[in-house]
């Protein structure tokens, strides 16, 4: 079996399992929607303009939603003994990492495809259809970073006691630079401040962040997932 076939087999397994149970999709989606409502009541007053906080609100929501999903992505594998089976297969560990990252990415994107329009309806006054490709680029790049780093850290924390406590403690400080870039780039799109200078720097930064942590995860995943 080639690495590509192994990759798609693991990815298909993860997505099939998720489509049958819909555990992560439904609960994370609900979490995201609830966060938006809570943000509204936490920040809104009669004359407040939330436009300049939109990027931050969106990414805080996605970050915490992704954390929920990442925790689950290995919990079942570990509890049901599926991971042992996976490790016994003659599969390169890096292939497992890439497939798991891709599965998490697909789930996160599936949630965002619905959540971003709802968010726009709730909080964004400007029509940004012309800048939609820019927003899609920001979201894709940020998601890739979140899922790559998150999958690596979820692998580490699943083997600890109290794994759902450990993951945020490790994940959140590491993801701060990505959050900064994604937040300001998204706010720029929502407010129409899309001069290419600043936004371009942030996009390049996101590409660099993804590349650095994909390489770092590539080099260390063997050790993270264990024997």
């Amino acid at each position, binding site marked *: 079996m080639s690495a590509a076939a192994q990759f798609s087999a693991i990815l298909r397994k993860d997505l099939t399992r998720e489509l049958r149970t819909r555990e992560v999709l439904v609960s994370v989606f609900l979490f995201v929607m609830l966060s938006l409502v809570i943000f509204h009541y936490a920040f809104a007053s009669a004359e407040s303009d939330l436009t300049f906080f939109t990027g931050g609100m969106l990414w805080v929501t996605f970050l915490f939603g992704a954390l929920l999903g990442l925790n689950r992505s290995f919990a079942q594998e570990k509890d049901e003994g599926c991971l042992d089976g996976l490790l016994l297969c003659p599969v390169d560990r890096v292939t497992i990492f890439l497939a798991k990252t891709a599965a998490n990415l697909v789930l996160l994107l599936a949630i965002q495809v619905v959540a971003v329009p709802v968010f726009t309806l709730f909080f964004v006054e400007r029509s940004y259809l012309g800048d939609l490709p820019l927003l899609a680029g920001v979201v894709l790049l940020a998601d890739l970073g979140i899922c790559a*780093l998150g999958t*690596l850290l979820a692998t*580490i*924390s699943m*083997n*600890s*006691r*109290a794994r759902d*406590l*450990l993951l945020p*403690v*490790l994940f*959140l*400080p*590491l993801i*701060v*630079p*990505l959050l*900064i*870039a994604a937040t*300001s780039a998204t706010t720029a799109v929502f407010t129409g401040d899309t001069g290419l200078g600043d936004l371009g*720097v*942030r996009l390049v*930064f996101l590409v*660099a*962040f993804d590349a*650095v*942590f994909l390489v*770092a995860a590539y080099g*260390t995943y063997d*050790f*993270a997932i*264990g024997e």
Partner: protein
Amino acid sequence: MQASQARLDGAAGGAAGGGRLLGAPALFVYAGAALAAGLLLAFWYAPVDASSMGFSQKIFYYHVPIAWAALVAFGVAFVSGILYLRSPDLRYDRLGLVGVRLGLLFSLLVMGTGMIWGKVAWGAWWAWEPRLTTFLIACLLYAGYFVLRSMVDEEARRATYAAVFAIIAFVDVPITFFATRFLPEGLHPVVIRAGEAGMEGSMLLSLLVSVLGMSLLLAGLIRLEYAAERLGDEIADLKDRLGEVGL
């Protein structure tokens, strides 16, 4: 038992440094001399800063070397992380633990001295200035290192995870520093950057002497802490064996 006793004595001797030129006590003496010289140079040789910072700039002869030592300590953890993954030897794990612990300690001191200076320069104890913020995030990041260690029971696995995390964390710190510059600077002036034009030779010399002193202090602390960790492991090992023979 006698062999263990001899080993313990040896380890204790290692901790004390045994009068060697590079033992922990000797390093502390050198560090003390260099740091004292650095302070004397800072106050009596280097001129008072000509820009708006004036006398308060003197704290930089202390603040910058501490920041340097913090980064070096995290670097030690990074390198020992790589070495551990290449050949799983618990000595590297111990060195990594010591590096992170001292790096965290020095980072807290960086923030402390930075805040004192900020109070004088900006009139506020805290400002979201890129350097200060980077050290805050580094502190939170490396605090997670200890949470991680405490939550993994098996020794080899704990060491592996700690090594992986120390590597990733060290890669993240410069990225964080870069990213914090995306944020608006707000009302506060940008700190004058050491090494930029305007730093006089006498200032640079004073700073370098302090950097040398702080590096020596860090080296001494690493030796001492490392020896203490090794003794701790040895004691735990002996206790286990005493338990096995039912004593």
